[in-house]
Each structure stands twice: as structure tokens, then as C-alpha cells.
């Protein structure tokens, strides 16, 4: 990030790399870890990728912060940021969907729950999508589905490896079946990306559940996850109701999924960029091959 951007953010009253975890300390310079209670200097926390120095707890970060952590400075070029959500069903529960959208847009400064674009990771070009859990729980509606699909199509065309950072409660109910169909649409685009022998990696962050788990989160050539992230298809409460038995303590954590063979590797956030770089470099010969084949 340039110094200019940093000042621009300051003017907007937005602290750079703001930790979204709410706590009594969050107004000041100090942050209290929600996991171990340790009070740390906010700047130290941010310098440590918002990971607690004491217990390793990964605080939730927003999409822009995630992009800053992964990409080389000034290399992220967003695409399709002009897509905005509509209210196709005229949906209203206790509140109107249109109002919920406006509120999320105002509080996040985003149009919907995902940022997509191209970037460089230690000078290796890559396509990148980052879901933002702050926007209606990272739920997937038409815009999220369309932006991810376009990004996949773009990376297939440009022969780019692809990383999708997942953080989602699942399909966005307010757009009904259109949301469910985004799962199929994205999976179709991934089929073509795969057919072109290009590398796709989802990074599963806390939480990745429902329709996102049942589509692109589980379709990686390699599947990465953050420590202790909640990852699952069905909600824990639903399962407890059907089973009426106690579930294992680590149920639906990244570690549980790795134990059962559904996650390739768990990557602490502080090592994320380094690990990504290693994996991308190890696949580079493959990438060059598919480029020359085209």
C-alpha cells in the first residue's frame, strides 16, 4: 500500500488493517485477544497478520487486509467491481433485503461480498478472489457468484493459477434459488479451468460452510485452510438436533478436516504468502507448459 492510500484511509477514519473483532479495547491502541485474553498493542497485532502472539488465535480480517497480506504492493487490479446486487425476489423477512444490502454496503464500503482481480505473489501472476464475511455473513448471491465465475473464466483465458479465499455462511437465502444456482455456475467454470490444466486453490478461512463448502471450497486441486477455521457442510446445531449426541471437540475445524482427508495443508496466516509462493513456484513448470500449448 502506498503512503498516499494510507493517508486516504486515515482521512476516511479507517485504520489501516483494522481488526474487525469487536471488544471493549477496540477503540484504543490496545486489543484484547478473544481467545486467551492477552492484551496486545494493536500495531503489534496488525504486524503479526492479526494473529495473537500469545495463543495463535487468528482474528478475522476483511477482504482488503487479506489482499494486502497476499499480494505484492500495488499489483492487485480489481475486475468486475461494477457489478451491484439487486433484489430479484422482492424479499422481505423481518427487514427488507434491499435495506440489508444498503446497510452492508455502507458499513463495508463494498458493493457485495467478494473482491476479485489479478495480482502478483512474489512476482508470480495469479487470479485472486477474496470473500468478505462482514458483508451479510459472506453469503453467496448472484453478484458473488457472477464475480467469481468471471474471475475463473478470466484466469482460464489468461492461463493464470487461481486462489479463492473463502469465508461464507453459504448461499444467500434472500436471492432464493438464484443463489443455489451460483454453486453450479461456479463449479462449471472451475471444470473448464481444470480442463485447461491450471492450478486452483481455495483457502478456507473461518467460517466456510453450506453452499460454499458444497461447491468451490472443496474443488481445489490443493485445498488450504487457516488454523482452527470452522469448515463444514451442515450447521453444528442442526447436526446435534438430529443426532442427540455429543460431537467431537474439534468437529468441523480445519484440523478435523485435515485428519479426514479433505484439506491438503493448514497454513498459519503469518506463513501464508511464503507457502503460496512455494506452491506456485513448484507448479511453474506446469504453468509454462500449458501456456506454450495454447
Amino acid at each position: 500500500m502506498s503512503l498516499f492510500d494510507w493517508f486516504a484511509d486515515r482521512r476516511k477514519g479507517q485504520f489501516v488493517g483494522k481488526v474487525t473483532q469487536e471488544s471493549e479495547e477496540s477503540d484504543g491502541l490496545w486489543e484484547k485477544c478473544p481467545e486467551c485474553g492477552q492484551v496486545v498493542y494493536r500495531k503489534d497485532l496488525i504486524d503479526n497478520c492479526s494473529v495473537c502472539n500469545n495463543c495463535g488465535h487468528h482474528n478475522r480480517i476483511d477482504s482488503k487486509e487479506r489482499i494486502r497480506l497476499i499480494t505484492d504492493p500495488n499489483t492487485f487490479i480489481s475486475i468486475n467491481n461494477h457489478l451491484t446486487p439487486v433484489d430479484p425476489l422482492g424479499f422481505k423477512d423481518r427487514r427488507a433485503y434491499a435495506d440489508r444490502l444498503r446497510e452492508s454496503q455502507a458499513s463495508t464500503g463494498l458493493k457485495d461480498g467478494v473482491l476479485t482481480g489479478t495480482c502478483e505473489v512474489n512476482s508470480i501472476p495469479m487470479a485472486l478472489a477474496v470473500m468478505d464475511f462482514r458483508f451479510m455473513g459472506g453469503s453467496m448471491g448472484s453478484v458473488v457468484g457472477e464475480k467469481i465465475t468471471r474471475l475463473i473464466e478470466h484466469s482460464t483465458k489468461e492461463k493464470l493459477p487461481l486462489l479463492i479465499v473463502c469465508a461464507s455462511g453459504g448461499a444467500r437465502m434472500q436471492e432464493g434459488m438464484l443463489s443455489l444456482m451460483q454453486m453450479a455456475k461456479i463449479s462449471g467454470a472451475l471444470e473448464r479451468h481444470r480442463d485447461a490444466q491450471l492450478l486452483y486453490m481455495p483457502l478456507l478461512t473461518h467460517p466456510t460452510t453450506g453452499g460454499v463448502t458444497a461447491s468451490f471450497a472443496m474443488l481445489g486441486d490443493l485445498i488450504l485452510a487457516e488454523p482452527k477455521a470452522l469448515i463444514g457442510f451442515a450447521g453444528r446445531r442442526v447436526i446435534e438436533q438430529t443426532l442427540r449426541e455429543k460431537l467431537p471437540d474439534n468437529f468441523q475445524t480445519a484440523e478435523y478436516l485435515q485428519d479426514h482427508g479433505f484439506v491438503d495443508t493448514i497454513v498459519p496466516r503469518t506463513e501464508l504468502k511464503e507457502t503460496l509462493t512455494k506452491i506456485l513456484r513448484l507448479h511453474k513448470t506446469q504453468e509454462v507448459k500449458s501456456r506454450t500449448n495454447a
Partner: protein
Amino acid sequence: MARRFLLEFEKPLVELENQIDQIRELARDSEVDVSQQLLQLETLAARRREEIFNALTPAQKIQVARHPQRPSTLDYIQMFCDDWVELHGDRNGTDDQALIGGLARIGEKSVLLIGQQKGRDTKENVARNFGMAKPGGYRKALRLMDHADRFNLPIICFIDTPGAYAGLIAEEQGQGEAIAVNLREMFRLKVPIIATVIGEGGSGGALGIGVADRLLMFEHSVYTVASPEACASILWRDAGKAPEAASALKITGPDLMKLGIVDEVLKEPSGGNNWAPLQAGDTLKNALEKHLSELLALSTSELRDNRYSKFRKMGKYLESQSIESEISV
């Protein structure tokens, strides 16, 4: 014959039906000619039934879609498939009874058929897990679809599930992964795929066998992103608001046709498919044969490209013209 299972809104019909039964009984025991009276009452009952079923709310349609006597996958197979051979197992340790498959002939054509299967009663439902497949069910389905792809057999899917099974074992075995892989792989298949929502289509569990060239739906079938019960308890914080959620979610065939998701809505007999199963079977068979012959006329690449663009178009959003599209991080 077993007594018909009645839904709440069908109760006004019961009185009429009881009258008809009584008169029939009387006529059997005496010499009185009641045919005129019977005809009148039967016409009235038919008209009532028609009125009720033409005005069903989405919440009522869910009840019809879940009717225990609504024809199931195996019923349709029995009604119009020849040479049915059920094929078991995912070759990975399980044979899910909630999602079945096999080879059959429909008219002149050999097909591969898969579908969710609920039970008729509690005992059957326990064996069938109420039509909620585990990961092994989805993997069996994919194994069979791959077989169809190798031997150039069109694939017919019958969707009838409250959803994929939500349980410890399902998570352990990767329910999300199993469904996800089906979604991707169904785009790869080179043979025609027709899916029909014969009962209820519950979310990802339905979509897991639902990436098709044509999606058909019976008139009173429903297809939901989340069950209205779950939706109500999350968004309304009140499971009692399920009927409101059912309306808001747009889950009926006509609604989903408007949204560009469903290709054809199949008419049901008055009173629903459970009222006249054979008629429902005819309707479905005719529709499948029509769509099959259309799809079989396409080349492999046309078929796959069309399937891709069909789903590619799904979704509603605004594409604003403004240039403020750059985002700074």
C-alpha cells in the same frame, strides 16, 4: 385399498367423500337408484378439489410435494421403465439407500436413471434415511453417471429430497466435497442429462444430481435454496414463520421458470400426483421422451456448451456503467 392420507386443506373434501361413500353403501343394500345423486356429488367434489389445488399456497405445495403417497423414483421406474436393473454401491465402502440408480429402458432408449428415494412409512423411511443421501450416495451417483458417459447412455435424474443428510458421519465423509465434485463433473459429461423435481428439491442435496441440460418440475413440486423452516428460524428468528418464508423464497415451478431456472412445469392431475399416479407417470414419460429426442439431436460439444451457458446465465445483478470500478487496497 389403504385409506388416502389427507392434508389439512383437503379436509373440506372429506365430508363430500364421506357422503358419496354412504350413498354408495346405501345403494348396495337397497334397490334405490342413486346414480343421479352420486354423479352430482362426484362432480361437486371434483370441482372443489380443482378449486383447492388451483389456489395452493407455496406452503401447501410443500405438503403436496411431501405427501407420503406421492409417486416416488421407484414408482415411476415401475410405471414406465422396462428392463430395470438396479446398480448398487459407490465402490468405496457404502451403498446409500436414499439415492438409488440403475439401468433401464424408456420406450426405445436405454438410459441410466438415478434418483432420491424416500420411504412410504416409518420403517421404510429409516432404511431410506428419509431420502437424505450421505456422501456415498452422491459418489455412487457420480460413479453411475461416469458409466453412462462411457457407454453413451442419457442420464435421467429424479429429485426428491429434503436435503443432503446433515450428520456426523456425513461431515466426516465429506458431504460438501461429494456434492461439489458432482456439480463440477456433471458439466464434463458428454451425454444428455434431464433432471425432474418429482417431489421436493432440497438445496445442495438436490443440486448434487441436478446439473442438467433440462430441468423439469411437477406442478406441485418445490425446489428450495434452504428449507422454509430453516430459513424462517434464521431470518425471522421464528420457525413458525415457515409459510411466510415459503412464499418469499419463490420455490414453485412457475416462479422458477420466471427466474430462468426451470425449463418446463409438468401438469399434475387434479388433487396432485398421489391422486392419479398413472396419469402422472404418463405425463413424466412423455416429457422425458420429448426432451430426450431434442437433446439427442445435438452434438456432444453443442450439448456441453449449451449446458454451460444455461447455468452461466443464472443470476440477477446490475452492471453499472460507471468507471469507479477500480478498488484500492
